[in-house]
């Protein structure tokens, strides 16, 4: 796909996000949920990085911290040449329009009391990008771009179906002409027959506008389809990251292997022939993660060393990184 560019647009270095939980009667004793714990990766300009993992693995928190909906506990987020992770709101303002987000639930993420035109126009107002007739023209143009009727700008969100609402959410994100869009589970609330429509549109927009995506999802087949590179997270850690074909063909980490083998394949012959790695148990609580490698409690290959030493990220060749003692 868009491999022409080797320029790095965004780099996340040792990102940490801990959420405090107060315990005890007076809230004196504080524990931390380590939602994102020391995660590093980069995204090249014009490429799509997929981020997958099970619920609670920290993939959404990573996205929300990069876009500064959360303030990182520690670590850096370098966007272009600027470190935005620790900027205050005023310094951050010019960056807000360069990074946008598309949310999972198209029913909850649009204000029900605003018309579609105002939902999209609000971003233009905040950044003072257009007003009056020009503003209206931009709104109409955006609606047409995402495949909606421009005349629908006067309608309210409840008049639209789920797939159409997600298109409105995408039009809103595009309004400020961003360079980088974080797509947080953008299709998981949509019907199967509608998902492909939205994914194709995201791909078309990327080609047309040169966008860079961080695509967060739990649907591994869709992530493989849309991403150039894919990162796999488990319990707040990035356990493996590689080019998407490489990751799916030659997964290195036992968790990635199990995750890939768990996906039901819509083809009965393959499904019957497939050997599944069924993981035991559930994901441990992030309040009290296992020592050493966090996956060791469910890992079929766990050794004594795994409980003691946390495995570092190792390059297994060609930028394919994985964190496992077996490598």
């Amino acid at each position: 796909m868009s491999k022409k560019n080797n320029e790095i647009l965004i780099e996340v270095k040792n990102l940490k996000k801990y959420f405090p939980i107060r315990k005890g009667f007076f809230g004196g004793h504080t524990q931390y949920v380590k939602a994102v714990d020391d995660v590093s990766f980069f995204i090249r300009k014009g490429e799509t990085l997929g981020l997958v993992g099970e619920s609670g693995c920290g993939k959404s928190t990573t996205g929300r911290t990069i876009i500064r909906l959360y303030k990182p506990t520690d670590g850096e987020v370098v966007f272009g040449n600027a470190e935005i992770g620790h900027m205050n709101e005023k310094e951050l303002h010019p960056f807000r329009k360069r990074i946008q987000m598309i949310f999972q639930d198209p029913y909850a993420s649009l204000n029900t009391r605003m018309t579609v035109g105002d939902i999209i126009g609000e971003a233009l107002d905040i950044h003072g990008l257009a007003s009056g007739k020009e503003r209206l023209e931009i709104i109409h143009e955006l609606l047409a771009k995402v495949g909606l009727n421009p005349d629908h700008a006067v309608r309210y969100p409840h008049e639209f179906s789920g797939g159409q609402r997600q298109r409105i959410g995408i039009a809103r994100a595009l309004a400020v002409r961003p360079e980088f869009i974080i797509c947080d589970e953008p299709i998981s609330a949509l019907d199967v027959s509608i998902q492909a429509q939205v994914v194709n549109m995201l791909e078309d927009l990327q080609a047309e506008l040169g966008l860079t995506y961080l695509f967060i999802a739990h649907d591994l087949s869709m992530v493989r389809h849309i991403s150039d590179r894919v990162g796999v997270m488990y319990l707040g850690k990035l356990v493996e990251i590689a080019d998407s074909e490489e990751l799916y063909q030659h997964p290195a980490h036992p968790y990635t292997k199990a995750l890939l083998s768990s996906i039901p394949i819509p083809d009965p012959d393959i499904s019957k022939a497939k050997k599944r790695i069924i993981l035991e148990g559930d994901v441990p609580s992030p309040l009290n993660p296992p020592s050493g490698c966090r996956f060791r409690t469910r890992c079929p290959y766990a050794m004594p060393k795994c409980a003691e030493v946390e495995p570092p990220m190792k390059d297994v060749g060609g930028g394919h990184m994985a964190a496992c003692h077996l490598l």
Partner: protein
Amino acid sequence: MKNEKLLEVKDLKTSFFTHVGEVKAIRGVSFNLDKGEAIGIVGESGSGKSVTSLSVMRLLQFPGKIVGGEILFRGQDLAKKSEKEMQAIRGNEIAMIFQDPMTSLNPVYTIGNQIMEAIIRHQDLSKSQAKEKAIEMLRLVGIPSPEKRVDNYPHEFSGGMRQRAMIAMALSCEPSLLIADEPTTALDVTIQAQILELMKDLKEKINTSIILITHDLGVVADVCSRIIVMYGGLIMEEGATEDIFYNPKHPYTWGLLKSIPRLDLGGKKRLIPIEGTPPDLLKPPKGCPFAARCPYAMKVCMEHIPPYYSVDEKHRSMCWLLDERAPRVEVDTGVQRGRTE
């Protein structure tokens, strides 16, 4: 497989009488289920797949109502049973697992109490015997140390364990029919794999018939031997799992198979979506419900609902393209027989 019919649904029609008018959620659905067989009902939201299962269970809530047809379970018409008669069947002979294990368990009773409730109601067992049975069921579905876990409350269980507890509850009276409505949709993939494995395993052990309702074609390919594809309140195509995947005859089935990315094939082939949106069942289209989105729609499709055409003994499709007067259409869905990765 023994060809003993367990369930026979004949021309079932269910409507919801809302203040804006009658929503015809199911408009004439017929299918059978043999003893020990697992069938899958596939469709997107609003296709009528869940309403079909709720009608069979007679769990439709106001303003929903069965307006026509028969539901023959072992030859008896469930549609005509009184609520009291249904209570003796529900949970005993027919059990159901719901999508969301978080909301379908009662948070103020222990898991054990909730499983025992069904056992005490339908079987002649004392309280302590029922508890023994509950522990045995939890062990069967793979809950570690069930003697202790039986006294836990639902919030002390994880999502996957709650779904296991739901399955234990559903199977506690050894039902001859288990209806699972999107049992794994709320779960993570690794947990989904555990639950599907469990369901396949239990089907062998207890010989229960299963109706699995899902939107995920991968899930049915794994578990079911026969598939029903629903759209707009009607069965569009029905056939053995192999037929639906390798020899589909309905444009909606083609569309579904083409629109999902294939993990096993790889490559960056562009997805082919089904354009448009599903029909509004308040004013269902006069002809085929899929006609408005069908790339092969003809004039007749807009005007008349097609009849079922038999492809072979067990494979039927509701599409005018199968009429001998229609043009021949060949479609490559990318799914091929005999591949094993």
